[in-house]
């Protein structure tokens, strides 16, 4: 399967990439690792007229200590997140989740910024960064702005990014001392989650986010509220699907997804409380 024809330009910097995307308009797309976009283009579900390749903007591939958070360049690959000692100690939920994205070949190419900007609710990293309360940094022609993960996802494959903005950095609050868990239920090792759960708990606070339980990643606030009010894990997990609005597909009915969410949230809370 070959994508529809497009023009290809390569950017050497974020500024150049933003200038190019502005020049070519709404039918142009950024290409990072390509592991979300190229499969869609091969199926002709996406037919951008221009690809602006940002894969060589090397100064956007980094993992740095930002004090109260870890700053991750948008072009950092999943494999580098998985193997990062800094993330392993200060945000282990993210490093662990990254190790469950696709398979090793995918993780050698795919980037965190690409995955988040693609805004697929079935992807692992959007929900995990949502649970972690991450802040995304977007750069446009007029400078940068910060977008809370909770404000970023607006619908299926739709984010708060303007057409001429690109993600440049992801800031993940440090979670030292927290208990955490990532649960991914699928039928084949490399598949997307049929349902997934990212959760962490610290000092009586709990955050839980759901993968593939709606048109966006879903923050399960009823679970957190129930736990804060003294509910047991079993009773809190029963609220897992309260904010969700899942779709049925070949893998699962709506009822099955709601059931899975409750089971997986219970497992996640148990592990995160251990």
């Amino acid at each position: 399967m070959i994508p529809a024809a497009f023009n290809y330009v390569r950017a050497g910097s974020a500024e150049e990439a933003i200038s190019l995307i502005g020049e070519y308009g709404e039918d142009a797309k950024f290409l990072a690792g390509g592991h979300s976009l190229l499969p869609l283009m091969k199926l002709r579900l996406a037919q951008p007229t221009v690809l602006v390749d940002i894969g060589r903007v090397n100064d956007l591939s980094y993992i740095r200590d930002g004090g109260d958070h870890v700053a991750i360049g948008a072009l950092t690959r999943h494999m580098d997140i998985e193997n990062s000692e800094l993330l392993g100690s200060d945000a282990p939920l993210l490093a662990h989740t990254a190790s469950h994205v696709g398979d090793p070949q995918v993780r050698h190419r795919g980037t965190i910024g690409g995955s988040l900007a693609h805004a697929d609710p079935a992807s692992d990293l959007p929900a995990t960064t949502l649970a972690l309360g991450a802040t995304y940094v977007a750069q446009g022609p007029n400078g940068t702005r910060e977008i809370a993960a909770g404000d970023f996802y607006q619908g299926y494959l739709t984010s708060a990014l303007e057409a001429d903005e690109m993600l440049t950095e992801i800031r993940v609050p440090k979670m030292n001392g927290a208990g955490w868990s990532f649960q991914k239920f699928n039928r084949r090792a490399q598949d997307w989650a049929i349902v997934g759960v990212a959760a962490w708990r610290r000092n009586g606070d709990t955050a839980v986010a759901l993968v593939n339980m709606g048109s966006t990643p879903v923050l399960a606030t009823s679970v957190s509220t129930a736990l804060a009010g003294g509910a047991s894990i079993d009773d809190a997990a029963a609220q897992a699907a309260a904010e969700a609005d899942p779709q049925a597909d070949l893998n699962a009915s709506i009822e099955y997804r709601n059931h899975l969410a409750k089971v997986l949230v219970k497992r996640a809370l148990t592990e995160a409380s251990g």
Partner: protein
Amino acid sequence: MEISVTVNGVTHTGDVEPRTLLVQYVREHVGLTGTNIGCDTSSCGACTVHVNGEAVKSCTMLAVQADGQDITTIEGIADADGTLHPMQQAFIENHGLQCGYCTPGMVMAATSLLEENSNPTENDVRIGLEGNLCRCTGYHNIVQSVLAAAGGAK
């Protein structure tokens, strides 16, 4: 667009359409057909090659993205005198293939795995090869082959 790609140590320079996939480039432009196209949807891993030493699915990368990069295919891992790579030899000795269609991708994924983890457990191998599908062997002998190659490399 003119690109220059080093494949198995030989640099190839020429024009490609931007939509040319790396696997197409390797098979049809460079003429190395050892790399197979299986699912064509980045699931099966039959098209796995190394880009700068790391396993990548060449059906999900554009040739223009490989411009200036160093590609290794299944044809490039044996010695010049024909001596097989230890991983290839291990697949032969452990009957790690039946029809052989997945084998080039399996071998390239497995050599990349051992670059990252030279002493894997059986479970490490199974997880490390999660991106490669085989519809003949049930994986048992493939896993044994990779473990044998890892042992030989010690």
